[in-house]
């Protein structure tokens, strides 16, 4: 088929992708947007399959069958609480596909005459190697992220003091090999060494990142998978790959940026795992020292009974306890009693961007009840009760007040300004930042100890009977 025609059709599918992403700006148009994007994909794939350079179809058909079945099963069976793992897997597949494509292209070119000399040849090899580097890091980094989220390995930071020097060394050697290959593309040994070093780098970059920093990693790997696709587009001289890949790359970068701002940390700071050092270790007993009050479900129900406005603050603990449906029921019962209920969503609550929103949407909480941090914070002073479920660091007033605190400057939800704060939590154990939370010792704060789901169900039952 005429290459100009193919490029024009690729342009059409690129337009579909753009319209698809544009559809995501509103929940109402989002489903249609996703469809448009899928149509764009179908057009691009079909037109490519008609390409004259494809001579054998057996590997393609087998690959599409296997991939389609695996992808289909994953997408339909996965639980909403496991969505971060799903995204990690998809990121990894994106990186892996680019890596496989780049490696296949390199070997094929080496077999059939090799790269031409001169600037063009050097650039062609360069694109392949950049794709290999980014694709490998994305692949293995995502696998580690998946293992952490799935708790196959510890979800916390794993590593040793000098790991950043190891990473720097790995990165420098990868770049050196990349440069060597540009001038001597025939040296396959260096090529495979580059693959090995890049794959190791992906592992050692993600291992030391843990817990509440996971949203940043997921968003960043999302971006890498797009950049890898765009780099693969340069290898193949394929316009739709370049456009789609860079759209995805930009998307991931923006999400990464949003996550970093929401934690008041720079990207390098997250990647190299350095929390700002606090002036001194804060003693939990000193903060809590007999000032923490706990309450039973019945007492909470009595307080809620007289409330006019309640804000629910969900965190990763809600996902862990699978409490989203119980929370929705509590919210329904309160609304039946004429209480105004809203949900306060901190940008980094959970393990990926938008994690809480997806869980609450699954439990059929209308999305207009989910309010972003900046819009809900001024309303806490008019709020009778704030119910915190499985969130900790994002409500810690030290971030606002204590200049010496490692989390100082991180934007938080000002739940302490509410008349009463109810914190549902297993114990007084610290969150990811490892800090005690003075909120728990405040006069207006009541702790309900126990499993999030069970506690919420008990409060709901007590409220129904009240």
């Amino acid at each position: 088929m005429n290459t100009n025609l193919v490029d024009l059709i690729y342009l059409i599918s690129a337009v579909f992708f753009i319209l698809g992403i544009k559809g995501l700006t509103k929940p109402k148009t989002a489903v249609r947007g996703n469809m448009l994007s899928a149509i764009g994909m179908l057009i691009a794939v079909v037109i490519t399959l008609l390409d004259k350079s494809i001579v054998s179809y057996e590997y393609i058909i087998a690959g599409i069958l296997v991939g389609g079945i695996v992808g289909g099963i994953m997408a339909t069976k996965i639980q909403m609480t496991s969505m971060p793992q799903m995204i990690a897997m998809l990121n990894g597949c994106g990186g892996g596909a680019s890596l496989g494509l780049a490696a296949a292209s390199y070997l094929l070119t080496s077999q059939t005459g090799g790269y031409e000399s001169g600037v063009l040849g050097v650039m062609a090899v360069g694109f392949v190697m950049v794709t290999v580097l980014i694709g490998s890091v994305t692949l293995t980094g995502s696998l580690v992220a998946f293992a952490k989220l799935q708790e196959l390995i510890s979800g916390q930071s794993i590593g040793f003091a000098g790991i950043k020097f190891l990473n720097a060394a790995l990165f420098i050697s990868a770049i050196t090999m990349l440069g060597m290959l540009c001038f001597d593309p025939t040296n396959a040994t260096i090529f495979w060494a580059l693959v090995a070093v890049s794959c190791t780098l992906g592992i050692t970059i993600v291992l030391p990142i843990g817990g509440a920093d996971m949203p940043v990693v997921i968003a960043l790997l999302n971006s890498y998978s797009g950049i890898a696709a765009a780099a693969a587009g340069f290898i193949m001289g394929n316009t739709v790959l370049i456009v789609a890949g860079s759209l995805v790359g930009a998307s991931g970068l923006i999400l990464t940026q949003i996550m970093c701002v929401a934690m008041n940390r720079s990207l390098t700071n997250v990647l190299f795992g350095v929390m700002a050092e606090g002036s001194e270790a804060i003693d939990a007993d000193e903060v809590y020292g007999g000032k923490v009050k706990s309450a039973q479900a019945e007492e909470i129900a009595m307080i809620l009974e007289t409330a006019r406005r309640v804000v629910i603050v969900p965190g990763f603990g809600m996902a862990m306890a699978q409490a989203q449906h119980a929370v929705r029921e509590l919210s329904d019962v309160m609304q039946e009693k004429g209480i105004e209920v809203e949900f306060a969503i901190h940008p980094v609550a959970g393990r990926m961007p938008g994690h809480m929103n997806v869980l609450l949407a699954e439990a059929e909480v209308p999305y207009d009840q989910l309010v972003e941090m900046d819009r809900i914070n001024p309303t806490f002073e008019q709020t009778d009760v704030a119910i915190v479920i499985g969130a900790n660091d994002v409500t810690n007033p030290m971030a606002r007040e204590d200049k010496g605190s490692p989390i100082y400057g991180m934007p938080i939800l000002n739940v302490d300004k509410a008349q009463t704060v109810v914190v549902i939590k297993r114990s007084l154990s610290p969150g990811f930042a490892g800090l005690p939370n003075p909120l728990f010792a405040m006069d207006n704060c009541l702790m309900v100890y126990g499993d999030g789901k069970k506690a919420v169900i008990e409060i709901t039952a007590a409220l129904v009977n009240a």
Partner: protein
Amino acid sequence: MEMIVMQLALFVLSLFLGVELITKIPPTLHTPLMSGTNAISGITLVGAVIAAGAGDSASSLVHGLGFIAVVMATVNVIGGYLVTNRMLAMFKRKN
């Protein structure tokens, strides 16, 4: 050479377009955005099929790598679009 310059221009302009588009997406849809863009990055499928379908002149390693690339890209496309659709359907109902 002109080709590469054109492609570079396309790349940079698409990045800017991406930034403009994505900043308008509300936080509530950030997870579907990620899975949806994952599906889009499955566009590597169009490159992967060319590698996998290279014919008998290519070694079995090339075919194997092409096959793996096709599998992974298809997981992205099918898995990404289906799971995005599943999530978005939850946002749509009741409204």
